[in-house]
């Protein structure tokens, strides 16, 4: 059975309507099965002020199987891989329920940013730092937020995306390449031309 388009579109509309939630979602290209989610770093955490992008892929069987989510923006967090953005969150795995939505999943990610679970780390290095020296962890996380997720960075990023798009690349392609190159325009171009 192909993906339930009606439901996904309803979900997207619902997120768009609820401006207060702090999460947004955007379709990548023509298919609703590839999306980019966006969430604000929670207040009173090292992620405050950051804007975090999440790559979302929906399987044909969605919502009966969980959406595949991965942070595009680099994050320093025990449950998120600092290398590839992989997320360790139970509702994205065996605790997923078809009655959950992309919005609830994104909100759960936001909640995960506020309350790390270092006992089951995705990134052992971060977890060790979190357990050993909280202050150091918070400093690193804040610095990463500043470097990779800060609003100004993101605004700057938008300009770079536009530049690359003008060179004839797709928007999502440009965004992904820029994320991989940590915002470096030349690096992103190299990635795009190399690929």
């Amino acid at each position, binding site marked *: 059975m192909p993906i339930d388009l009606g439901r996904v579109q309803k979900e997207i509309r619902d997120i768009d309507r609820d401006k207060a939630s702090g999460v947004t979602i955007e379709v990548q290209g023509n298919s609703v099965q590839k999306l980019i989610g966006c969430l604000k770093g929670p207040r009173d955490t090292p992620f405050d002020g950051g804007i975090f992008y999440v790559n979302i892929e929906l399987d044909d069987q969605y919502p009966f199987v969980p959406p595949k989510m991965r942070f595009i923006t680099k994050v320093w967090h025990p449950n998120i891989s600092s290398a590839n953005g992989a997320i360790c969150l139970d509702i994205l795995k065996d605790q997923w329920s078809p009655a959950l939505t992309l919005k609830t999943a994104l909100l759960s990610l936001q909640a995960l940013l506020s309350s790390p679970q270092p*006992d089951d780390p995705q990134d052992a290095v971060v977890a060790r730092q979190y357990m050993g020296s909280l202050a150091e962890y918070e400093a690193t996380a804040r610095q990463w937020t500043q470097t990779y997720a800060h609003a100004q960075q993101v605004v700057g990023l938008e300009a770079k995306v536009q530049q690359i798009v003008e060179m004839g690349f797709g928007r999502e392609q440009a965004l992904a390449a820029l994320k991989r190159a940590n915002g470096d325009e030349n690096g992103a171009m190299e990635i795009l031309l190399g690929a």
Partner: protein
Amino acid sequence: MAGSDDDQWFDDYDEPMSGGEDEDAYPSDSGAGGSDSGGTSTTDDAADDGFEERGPSEARSQLRNRLYSVIDRQNLRRIQEEALQQVQSILGCSTTTARALLIFFSWDAEAVLGTIAERGQEDVYKRAGLLSQSEEAEAYAAAAAAGAGGTVSCLVCMSDVGPSQATAMDCGHMFCNDCWREHMRINISEGMSRRLRCMAPGCGVVCDEDKVKALLRKDKPLLEKYEQTLLESYVDDNKRVKWCPSVPHCGHAIRSKEMHCEVECACGHQFCFACCEVQHSPCTCDMLHDWEQRMRDGSETSSWLSANTKLCPKCSKPVEKNGGCNLVLCRCGQAFCWLCGQATGRAHTWTSIEGHSCGAYKEEAEARANEAQRNLKRYLHYLTRYEANLQSGKLEAKLRKDVEAKVDALMEVDPSMSNFSWLNEALAQLFLARKCMAYSYIFAFYMFGQSMFKEDFSAEANAINQALFEDKQGQLEAEVEKLSQLIENPWPIGSAADMQSHRMAIINLAANIDTRIQKMYEVIECDITPQVASRGVGIAPYKGRHATGSGGEAAAEVYRRAAAAGGGAGPSGSNQPSSDVPDPAAEEGGRGGRRGKAPIAAGSGGRSKRKAGS
């Protein structure tokens, strides 16, 4: 008459294929004759558990040491229903509930009832997914039903449907039928039939079987798959029952009381119950697994598997990590850590896997790299010996042929020689000893290698253990080589006296070898494994050749031939017994021969019996 204990062993040995014409082929437990050995199995376990033992012959299934029994397709359903009824009759619950409880407790009905008595019904029901864990279930249902004009709003497809097109599970969560069906279709086709749960977040209540069947009634193949998986759950979710790994699959399952036990299915396939591989005592399953991995190194499939999968600590199937974090959930329901492969327990989620750390591996791996050279040499040493013994075992067929030729020649010279059970015993013992020797080298490779058991022994203790073991192994090897020579070298066929002493030498050596193997196992079981008991080293015990060994069958064939020839058909040995028309003369001759050989054979038979029973 011939129902004495000693005869029991010969009967099994001599006439496994006699088709049950002869009463003696059915030894009884009591030794009081064959009267109670008719249609039904009379072993205690079988009676208790309601399992029937089936096998090519009743005699053989009796000999299965009563540690395990064979379940076939027909009685699988019956056995499962008995277990369900046992739980249902005591708890007064539905079949769905009983099944969910039994699956949760790996089909251990006593554990179900015991835990309920101990911790209370509610707690157990909750853990087994029978009570909703989301407390707003009722409110949820009410909200769903509150759609305008009596419609139900399904929170999965987010559309409104009429009440007749929606179903609520026992927990009260209501969704539309199409969504339920899709949810079930995906889960059933992924092999999750026995864990069909409610779709509401955090609920986890098992879907009622009748409701599932009603929803799926139009999709026959899916419904069948659902029912089949539920049926097979008795084997799949049961630690004490395993499918026979024969290819093509014979449809049988084995139920064993002991995890580490070498079993033989009704189809004749012999395997290790714990790992379903070839029988490999005295080395452990881990050792065999690692060993075979080494031997297969270079094969592309295995290198992909070793690079990309980990074996589930519960069901030992390779699991591929398809994304996400290092807490991996196997299809069998076992959660484990991807880094170290250790089980972390089902209840664990990302919120509660406390205390699980596994950083020690890398340092150890580096230290090991320095020893690679030494290890390779050591490995080759054991590999050569392992292969040599396995190779000799593989030459069984040839040896058997040679021995048949000798038997023919001997009977031509001396037609009075009609009983060759001593020879069968010796051959079977030889083949069994070869197999034992082969695997004992794997055992030694790992046990004394200071890698797999590095933390368990000091270097001194290890040296002592190794010396003890190698002493016993060496003695066994010497005897095995001697016996091998005696059987293979030309026999003194011309002289009756010489032949007699040759025969005695073979009989004695075979008996010696049996004792040597036991001594070797004594060292393993009494001296070595107790030191690593905390590691749960499981080694199937030595049962003597009566309980195991294809050698037994191979030799039995030689004997049948000889018995038939000697008993009635003249000295040429060319007259084969017909399988469908048993020749009474031949059987009579065989039995007469058994009585005739009394002193020596009875002695050795008695000894074998003791071992086999131990």
